[in-house]
């Protein structure tokens, strides 16, 4: 971990408010107290570090005086109660963070795609959505997961498969999407929009095909990402 990352983590631990204010120049609402994720991270770190101290105390007391009622109390708190809080906060923070662009981009095979999102000159569909903030956050996740509970579950399972293939290097280049891209993911946001429904580019005759997915949105609006060969070779 670099010094800067360590400082950011410590800042988050000490003050979610300060961390959130320092990283963003966009004005924040009056009374801003940070995001839920920042608080989960800060409190999780505080509980986690506290728990390590409690475990050390329990270990020392157990060695010195055996299993006395006092030691039972220390053990109950250090092994039973506080780790429950740590587990909850780490799980919630990890689940939230695993859907961010930074998380997707942490695997180097994804770097060209993430760089394209930030490229001011890029006109790909993904970059257009990212740069104009058509999607507020979790940009990769929003477009690559179906909505609803099953969409979240299948996206998480697919993500686990990605981690496995990346870690075991059992993937092939260029990276390609596992299944044909579903129109329903576009229509989740655009489907009910008047701009979409009344656009001359979406003739009424083609609307059933778009809704049924027999005509892919990407036929006209692609490419979503840079060409695969170019992305893989970068």
């Amino acid at each position, binding site marked *: 971990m670099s010094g800067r990352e360590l400082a950011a983590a410590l800042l988050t631990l000490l003050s979610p408010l300060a961390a959130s204010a320092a990283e963003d120049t966009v004005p924040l609402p009056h009374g801003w107290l940070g995001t839920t994720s920042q608080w989960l991270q800060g409190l999780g770190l505080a509980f986690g570090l506290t728990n390590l101290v409690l475990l050390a105390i329990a270990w020392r007391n157990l060695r010195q005086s055996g299993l006395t009622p006092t030691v039972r109390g220390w053990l109950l708190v250090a092994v039973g109660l506080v*780790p429950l809080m740590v587990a909850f906060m780490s799980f919630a923070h990890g689940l939230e963070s695993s859907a961010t662009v930074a998380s997707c981009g942490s695997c180097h095979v994804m770097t060209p795609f993430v760089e394209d999102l930030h490229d001011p000159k890029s006109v790909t569909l993904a970059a257009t959505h990212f740069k104009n903030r058509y999607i507020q956050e979790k940009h990769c996740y929003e477009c690559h997961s179906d909505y609803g509970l099953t969409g979240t579950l299948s996206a998480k399972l697919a993500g686990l498969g*990605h981690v496995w293939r990346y870690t075991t290097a059992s993937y092939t280049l260029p990276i390609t999407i596992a299944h044909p891209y579903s129109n329903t993911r576009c229509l989740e946001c655009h489907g009910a929009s008047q701009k979409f429904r009344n656009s001359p580019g979406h003739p009424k005759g083609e609307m059933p095909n778009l809704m049924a997915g027999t005509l892919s949105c990407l036929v006209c609006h692609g490419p979503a990402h840079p060409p695969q060969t170019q992305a893989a070779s970068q």
Partner: protein
Amino acid sequence: MTGRDARGGLLRLAILLTAIFDVMALVVLVRNRPIAFAIFMFLGQPLFLAAVIILGGAMLADLRAKDLL
């Protein structure tokens, strides 16, 4: 090894397992990477569960040995 020594050893094991779980959780909180989260989910949390089961078992055995239960 007496029953008391065995219980002490098991409780120290529970503390160690919890400490390992705790470190994994801190890694997820400080530097979240998909691999770190996957390891935490599938290794860290079962370690914590094992620690809790060991703690419960050792404490019950101790209370029974002292005729308190």
